[in-house]
């Protein structure tokens, strides 16, 4: 069989006109790294499921993409993630939604598929399940990136202009994580403003 691996890192208003050479280089490098991680698994006789999980984990760990670290913010200032996994051989599937502490959501989705009798788990229950199954749990501040935070502020400002309502973030008592300084990688994150996912 022809081993093959295909990836995407999101779609949207990504054009040459609004992309800097530095950002483009950074995205290309992480996409290549992710792809080659999965390919090595396939080349050595590994399964498509292992390749898919490992490839996506690389992109989740990169702050450049809207998944894992680098996820966009909710209205309340949280990073709330979803993931799904499916095995073409057995048609088994697993997914999680609305999780805030699982470092690699894709692994949690696969774990739901392989180690539960269910297909979809959400929120706190999904996080409890992941913890119980030994997946890595992190503080929600791990997912914070400055460009995504600014993206939320911009969206809130636009909404405020449209709806003329007060600052919901202050009302909700959200406190921005204390992460001093802006790292070099933050400058490479492509800001599309309001991402749809």
């Amino acid at each position, binding site marked *: *069989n*022809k*081993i*093959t*691996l*295909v*990836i*995407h*890192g*999101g*779609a*949207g*208003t*990504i*054009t040459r006109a609004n*992309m800097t050479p530095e950002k483009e280089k950074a*995205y*290309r490098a992480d*996409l*290549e790294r992710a*792809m*080659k991680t*999965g*390919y090595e698994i*396939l080349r050595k*006789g590994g*399964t*498509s*499921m292992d*390749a*898919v999980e490992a*490839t*996506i984990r690389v992109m989740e760990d990169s702050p450049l*993409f*809207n998944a894992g670290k*680098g*996820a966009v*913010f*909710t*209205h*309340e200032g949280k990073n709330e993630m*979803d*993931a*799904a996994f*499916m095995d*073409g*051989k057995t048609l088994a*599937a697993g*997914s*999680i939604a*609305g999780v805030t502490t699982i470092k690699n*959501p*894709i692994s949690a*989705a696969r774990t739901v598929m392989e180690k539960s009798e269910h297909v*979809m788990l959400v929120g706190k229950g999904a996080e409890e399940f992941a913890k119980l199954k030994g997946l890595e749990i992190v503080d929600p501040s791990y*997912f914070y990136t400055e460009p995504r935070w600014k993206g*939320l502020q911009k969206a809130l400002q636009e909404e405020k202009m449209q709806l003329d309502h007060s600052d919901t973030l202050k009302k909700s008592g959200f406190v921005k994580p204390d992460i001093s300084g802006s790292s070099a990688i933050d400058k490479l994150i492509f800001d599309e*403003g309001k991402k*749809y*996912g």
Partner: protein
Amino acid sequence: TVGCVALDQYGNLAAGTSTGGMTNKRWGRVGDAPIIGAGTYANNKTCAVSATGHGEYFIRSVVAYDISALMEYKGLSVQKAADEVVMKKLVKIGGEGGVIALDKNGNFAMPFNSAGMYRGFIKSDGSWEVKIYK
């Protein structure tokens, strides 16, 4: 949103999708990524699919399963099936985004109707390519 589809040497397909969702989402909004059949689907008989885009439209169009169904029931190629859904069906209702789809023979499609999509592929001989723009 990130996603991956793969075909291994045993002829098995798999698909995965992971996302932070939509900026400024609330009320527990969930997009298509974790919905099996909408943003993610895999079937050895047809193809593996992962989607990215405006989730509400992808859910309503059951995008990932629809591509598989077009292949299974109408005998379309993976390219034609993916184009039919992303470039025609989704465009008609205003759904912006794209998919990656890979069939059991290693043929794949990466259509998108947005300005750009981060995407890439690597074949059995190790040749690879990363693309961003149209």
